[in-house]
C-alpha cells in the first residue's frame, strides 16, 4: 500500500517523528524535576504563585497521601469541576462575555459537555460558534483543558512513585502534583504556543461576529472569539474540544501548514515525553525508552496505513473524470472532508496522532475517510489510548498493559512476575484487569444497546456498514476519553448525550481508581533485588511481548465489530 505515499509525504512524516522524539528527553527530564519537587528555571517566575496557592488552600506540600486519600482528592476535585462547569453552561445567558446573546444550554447537553470536559474527553455534541458564549469557552472549557491533563499527570506520577518507592505508606500529594503540573508544565507551554499561533492568524478577540459583504453580493457571518488561548491548551493537554464546530479544520483555529505542524506536534508532545519522565523517576531511563519504543512500533505502521488509504483515493470517483493522482500541483487522494492546505499527508497524520493520544481534535472529517483510512483512528482508540495516549493517562494506561505483559511472561517461565523489583501479585492483576477490561465492556455494550434502540438508530447519518461504524466510533471515542467523532452521527439528543456521558465517566474513573490502588499497593512493597531469574523489561524481547499483548487484547476484543464496520465498508468500496 505504501507505494501511494508521495516523496514529500515521507519527508513530512519523518520530520514529524524526528522532532517529536527529539523533544522527549528535554521535556521529559524537565517534567521529572517538576514532579520531584525540584527547582527549575521556571521557579523564580512562578514559585511565589505556587506558595500562595498552597497557603490560601491550606495545602501542606510535605504531606503524603495514601492511595485512598489521593483517589478521594481526585474524585472530589473532578466532581467540583463538573458542578461549576455545568452551572456555567446552563446559565451562560446570565453571565458576561456573550455578545451573540446565546441562550443557556439544555440540561442534557450541559451534562454531556461538562462530563466531556471534566474527563478530558472533549466530545462535542454542540456547534461551538452557535452555542457557546465566550465566557463558557474561556472560563468554563479552557480551565478544564488545563486541569484535566494536570489530573492525568498527577495520577501518572502517583503510579510512578508506587513503582519507585520502597515500603512507603504514601504516593505523594494530589494537590501539589496537580498544581505543579498546571503551573510549571501546561501554563508556560500554552502561553508560548498561543502567541505563536496567534501571530500566524489564529484569532483572539472578544468582538461580536463580523458581517462581511462578499464579492458576489452575499453577506457572510464570521464567528469571532478568544480562540488562540484555548487552541494552545486544547492541543497540549490532549483535550481536543474545538472552539468551532469543525475544530482544527477551521482556518481561524489552524490557518497554515506551519500552525498545523505545531498543533499536531503538541498532540503527542507531553504524552511521549512522559515516558522519559517515568524513566528518570524510576532511576532507569531504559525502562522509559522501552515503553516509548513499544508505542512507536505500533504507531508508525498504522500511520502509514492511514496515509496510504487516503492517498489512494475513492475508486467511485475515477469513473467521473476526476483526477485523484498526486502531483506537484495537487495533493490528490480522498479530499472529501479535507482542507487544501493540509492535503492528504497532514490530514492522515493528524487523524492518527489525535486518536493515538486521547486528543480527539480533528483537522479533517473522519466520517469521510475511506473505510481503511477510518479504520486506523478507530483501532488506535480501541487499543485503550496507550499509544502515547493522553497527558498522563497514556502512560498510566500503558503501565497497566506492562503489568499484564509481565504477568503473562511470568506465567510462561513459571516465576513470580516482577516489574522494577516489585512483585506483581493477585491484587495488582485484579486491578489491572478491571482497568483493561472495563472500557471494552462499555464500548461493546453501549454500541449494542444503541444500534438496537430507535433513539440510537435515529442518529445515524451514512447508510450501510458505515452507519454502524458511526455508532461504534462514538462509544469507542467516549469511553476511551478521546472525543473525535464520525461526525455524521447526530449525537445531540437526550439518548446519546446521556449514554455517551456515562461512558466518558466510567471510562475515566474505572481506570484512575484501579491505577491508584495499584500505586498504593506497589508503594507498600519491598523491592526485590535483581537476580538471574528476573525478566529484564528494557529489552527488545520484552517490547515485543508488550506490543503483542496490546495487539491481542485490542484485536480479539473488537475483531467482530471491526469486521461489521470498516471491513465490510471496504469491500463495498472496492467492489465498485
Amino acid at each position, binding site marked *: 500500500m505504501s507505494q501511494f505515499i508521495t516523496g514529500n509525504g515521507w519527508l513530512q512524516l519523518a520530520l514529524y517523528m524526528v522532532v517529536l522524539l527529539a523533544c522527549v528527553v528535554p521535556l521529559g527530564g524537565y517534567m521529572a524535576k517538576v514532579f520531584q519537587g525540584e527547582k527549575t528555571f521556571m521557579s523564580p517566575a512562578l514559585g511565589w504563585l505556587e506558595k500562595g496557592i498552597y497557603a490560601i488552600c491550606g495545602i501542606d506540600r510535605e504531606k503524603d497521601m495514601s492511595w485512598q486519600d489521593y483517589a478521594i482528592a481526585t474524585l472530589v476535585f473532578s466532581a467540583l469541576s463538573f458542578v461549576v462547569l455545568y452551572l456555567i453552561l446552563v446559565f451562560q445567558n446570565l453571565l458576561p462575555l456573550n455578545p451573540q446573546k446565546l441562550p443557556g444550554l439544555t440540561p442534557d447537553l450541559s451534562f454531556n459537555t461538562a462530563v466531556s470536559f471534566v474527563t478530558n474527553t472533549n466530545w462535542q455534541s454542540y456547534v461551538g460558534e452557535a452555542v457557546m458564549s465566550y465566557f463558557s469557552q474561556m472560563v468554563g472549557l479552557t480551565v478544564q483543558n488545563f486541569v484535566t491533563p494536570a489530573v492525568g499527570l498527577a495520577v501518572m506520577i502517583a503510579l510512578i512513585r508506587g513503582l519507585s518507592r520502597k515500603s512507603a505508606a504514601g504516593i505523594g500529594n494530589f494537590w501539589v502534583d496537580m498544581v505543579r503540573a498546571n503551573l510549571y508544565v501546561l501554563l508556560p507551554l500554552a502561553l508560548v504556543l498561543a*502567541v505563536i499561533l496567534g501571530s500566524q492568524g489564529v484569532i483572539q478577540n472578544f468582538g461580536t461576529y463580523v*458581517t462581511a459583504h462578499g*464579492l458576489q453580493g452575499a453577506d*457572510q457571518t464570521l464567528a469571532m472569539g478568544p480562540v488562540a488561548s484555548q487552541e494552545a491548551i486544547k492541543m497540549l493537554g490532549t483535550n481536543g474540544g474545538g472552539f468551532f464546530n469543525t475544530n482544527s479544520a477551521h482556518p481561524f483555529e489552524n490557518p497554515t501548514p506551519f500552525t498545523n505542524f505545531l498543533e499536531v506536534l503538541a498532540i503527542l508532545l507531553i504524552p511521549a515525553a512522559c515516558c522519559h519522565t517515568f524513566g528518570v523517576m524510576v532511576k532507569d531511563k531504559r525502562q522509559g525508552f522501552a515503553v516509548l519504543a513499544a508505542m512507536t512500533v505500533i504507531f508508525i505502521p498504522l500511520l502509514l496505513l492511514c496515509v496510504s488509504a487516503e492517498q489512494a483515493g475513492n475508486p467511485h470517483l475515477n469513473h467521473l473524470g476526476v483526477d485523484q493522482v498526486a502531483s506537484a500541483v495537487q495533493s490528490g487522494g480522498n479530499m472529501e472532508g479535507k482542507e487544501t492546505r493540509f492535503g492528504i499527508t497532514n490530514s492522515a497524520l493528524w487523524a492518527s496522532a489525535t486518536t493515538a493520544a486521547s486528543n480527539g481534535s480533528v483537522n479533517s472529517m473522519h466520517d469521510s475517510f475511506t473505510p481503511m483510512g477510518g479504520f486506523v483512528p478507530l483501532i488506535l482508540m480501541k487499543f485503550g489510548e496507550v499509544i502515547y495516549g493522553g497527558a498522563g493517562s497514556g502512560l498510566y494506561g500503558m503501565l497497566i498493559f506492562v503489568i499484564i505483559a509481565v504477568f503473562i511472561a511470568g506465567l510462561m517461565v513459571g516465576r513470580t512476575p516482577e516489574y522494577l523489583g516489585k512483585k506483581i501479585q493477585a491484587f495488582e492483576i485484579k486491578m489491572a484487569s478491571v482497568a483493561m477490561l472495563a472500557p471494552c465492556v462499555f464500548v461493546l455494550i453501549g454500541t449494542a444497546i444503541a444500534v438496537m434502540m430507535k433513539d440510537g438508530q435515529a442518529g445515524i447519518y451514512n447508510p450501510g456498514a*458505515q452507519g454502524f461504524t458511526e455508532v461504534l466510533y462514538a462509544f469507542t471515542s467516549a469511553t476511551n476519553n478521546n472525543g473525535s467523532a464520525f461526525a455524521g452521527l447526530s449525537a445531540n439528543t437526550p439518548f446519546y448525550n446521556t449514554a455517551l456521558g456515562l461512558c466518558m465517566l466510567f471510562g475515566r474513573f474505572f481506570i484512575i481508581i484501579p491505577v491508584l490502588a495499584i500505586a498504593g499497593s506497589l508503594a507498600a512493597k519491598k523491592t526485590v533485588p535483581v537476580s538471574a531469574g528476573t525478566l529484564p523489561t528494557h529489552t527488545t524481547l520484552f517490547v515485543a511481548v508488550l506490543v503483542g499483548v496490546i495487539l491481542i487484547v485490542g484485536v480479539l476484543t473488537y475483531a467482530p465489530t471491526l469486521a461489521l464496520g470498516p471491513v465490510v465498508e471496504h469491500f463495498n468500496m472496492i467492489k465498485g
Partner: protein
Amino acid sequence: MKSLLSTLRPAIGTTVLLTVLLGGVYPLVTTGILQLGFKAQAQGSLIKDADGKVIGSSLIGQNFDQPKYLWGRLSATGTAPYNAGASSGSNLGSNNPALLDAVKGRVAALKAADPLNAKPIPVDLVTASGSGLDPEVSPAAAAYQVNRIAQARGIGVESVKSAIAKSTRGRDLGVLGEARVNVLEVNLRLDGKLK
C-alpha cells in the same frame, strides 16, 4: 468522612484560584500580547474595501459560482455554503450515494460553465472541505478554470494566470502542507480591488 472534609478546602480553593488564573489571567494576557503585537491576525485577517467595509477574511473562503470568478471547494456549512457562523464538513462516507451525487453535481456545473474543457477535474474541486470554509484550492484546480474565467471576462489567459500566480503559495518552509491558491484573493485581483 474526615478525609472528605479535609479535602474540601483545597478542592474549593484550587478550583477558584485556577479558574481565575487559567480562565481569566491567561486568556487576557494572551489577548493583550496578540492585540498589541498582531492586531490584524487577532481580529480575523479581515479584508476591507476603500470605505472600510469588510469584504471578507483572507483565511475564510467565500462562495463563488459565477463563471467570471475562480471557484473554491464545495462547502457543506449550514443554511448556505461558506457560512462562517456554522462551520461543517459534509461527513458523507466514501460509499454514500449522496457523496457521488454531490460530485456529479459539481462536475456538471463545471462542464456547463466551460463545455469545451475536456481535462480531468482535480479532486479538490469536486469535494467538500473539512471546515466548509476552505479559503484555498490546489494550483491544479485553479489552472483548470483559467480559460473559463478569461472568456467570461473577455480578457487574456495570461492576466488570469498572473492573478493566480500572485496568490499562490508553496509549501510552508518548502516542506509542510501543500501548495495552494487563495481563491478570494485571486478574485479580488481579477476585480481590480487588490494589486
